């Protein structure tokens, strides 16, 4: 009996140590992000101190204020608008396009359907960066260099959404659609009125992945724009820090502006995201 108790106590201690270790690891992993926000909120004289000062005191918004007021060389507000506009449009259109395709691949019967689907899925294995050169030339030939079309349309081509939604649609009981069919509904009505409402969880997960991915995209906006007013935030803040490399308060403020929207989106939808990843094995 005594032995059992000691063993219990031993296991207890082990659990406490493990939990402390987890907490320490979590704090270390969070530290860079906290440091970014902390620095962005500090007045300049508190940034380069002998010992790191984690809590800004007083909190100062001067760097953010400056970012949005001296707009000539670095139109941060414009970049913010570009990023928001592009990511939102990509998300909405990608959801519409991929859900339509996924509906055809899961519910309509036509010759060559499965071969076509396999061909689409196979392209998911193609590393995206290797086709940068041809994609760039195609966009240039279309006259889309430095344009919103050039920034948006290629982002709608990913096969992942088709794959995810088709899997989800296949799990929806066919009887529901058959009932609607009996009532005289055509495929368009069934897609819009029956399938899409039932697929809300999958659509939400896909929407949030697409949004974060489009917001954070760096390479494509980098090569497809060169006009300062057509840049997106990730590219813009890189240019900004190239000029103000040692102004840590200002560069951290740009980094904060660029990451707050995705962080908030993640915090709101974290359950959807983590479950979506578990469901499909894809990262944001």
């Amino acid at each position, binding site marked *: 009996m005594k032995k059992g108790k000691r063993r219990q106590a031993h296991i207890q201690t082990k659990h406490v140590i493990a939990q402390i270790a987890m907490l320490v690891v979590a704090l270390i992993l969070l530290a860079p992000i906290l440091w970014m926000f902390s620095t962005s909120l500090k007045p300049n004289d508190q940034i380069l101190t002998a010992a790191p000062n984690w809590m800004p005191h007083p909190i100062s918004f001067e760097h953010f204020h400056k970012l949005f007021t001296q707009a000539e060389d670095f139109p941060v507000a414009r970049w913010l608008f570009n990023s928001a506009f592009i990511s939102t449009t990509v998300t909405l259109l990608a959801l519409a396009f991929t859900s339509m*395709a996924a509906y055809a691949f899961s519910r309509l019967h036509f010759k060559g359907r499965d071969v076509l689907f396999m061909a689409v899925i196979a392209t998911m294995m193609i590393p995206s960066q290797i086709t940068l050169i041809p994609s760039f030339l195609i966009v240039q030939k279309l006259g889309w260099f430095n344009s919103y079309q050039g920034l948006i349309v290629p982002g709608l081509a990913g096969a992942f959404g088709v794959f995810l939604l088709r899997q989800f649609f296949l799990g929806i009981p066919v009887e529901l659609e058959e009932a609607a069919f009996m009532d005289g509904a055509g495929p368009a009505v069934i897609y819009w009125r029956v399938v899409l409402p039932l697929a809300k969880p999958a659509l939400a997960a896909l929407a949030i992945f697409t949004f974060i991915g489009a917001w954070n995209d760096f390479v494509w906006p980098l090569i497809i724009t060169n006009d300062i007013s057509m840049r997106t935030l990730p590219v813009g803040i890189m240019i900004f820090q190239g000029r103000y490399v040692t102004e840590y308060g200002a560069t951290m403020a740009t980094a904060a502006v660029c990451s707050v929207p995705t962080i908030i989106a993640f*915090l709101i939808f974290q359950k959807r995201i983590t479950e979506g990843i578990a469901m499909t094995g894809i990262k944001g």
Partner: protein
Amino acid sequence: MNKSQWRTAAMFLMPYGVVFGIFVLLPVLYGFYISLHKWHILAPKPEFIGLRNYKLVLSDDLFRIAFARTAFYVAMVVPLGNALSLLLAVGLNQNYRGTTFYKVAFYLPVVMSVSVIAILWRWLYSAEFGIINHYLSQIASLGHQIAPAISPAALKPQWLNSPATAMPAIALMSIWWGAGGNMLIYFAGLKNVPRELLEAAEIDGAGPWRRFWTVSWPLLRPTTLFCLVMSVIASFQVFGQTYILTGGGPYYSTLTIILYMYQQGFGLYQLGYAAAVGYLLFGTLLICTLIQFKLLAVKQ
């Protein structure tokens, strides 16, 4: 099968199909076509030169350096990154209090853009003012107090400024950035390990360590294969980190393949040559993936 069904299907497939055709299928074929040409962006007409670009790339010293440095990066990021992801997943799987907090904390870096993390880590890595060297110097002076032989200035790496440490620094940053993604996949894998098997092993007297290696780890094999394949493919394409932080320097120590492709294509406008670099990387990744499948695939 009738005409109207075809028409309906075509209607549903059209919007995605057009975009897919122009921006996925076409680039793959067109890229190969470009790689067979001497294709300068300003030249009036590309000149067909067969496989000469590929020969030139393969005998190019800078490409070899880029390939070796990228392989070095992959060799750090893939094993260490996956080990960290698995470790974090095992931690999450203990169901301690605050699991949601941990999940969020571990995953948070993943939702940030490469340019944000690069700008942030440039500062963390600053040799003079960065907090990493600040805490390292505290450790060093603590060591000095214990063993005076240790110089208090012993731990002051130059990080991004030294050819020896620049690539490891970028690898460390990338591991931090990406660990949360694979963590969630490993976590899902661990959740699928049947409880009864773990309980049976426990009754047989297996401790947690033994239970993990004899029960969970073999069952995680498909998950591990998936994560490894995906991280190899992603790591070989490393670009933003080296482009923003070092531009490939110092002394080409962080020149990576896609960065080299970018420099050739958009810096020197040698589009044919750059396309060939991309296709050689594609071939490398195909071979890597096949090898991993051979080594790790679940034997039936």
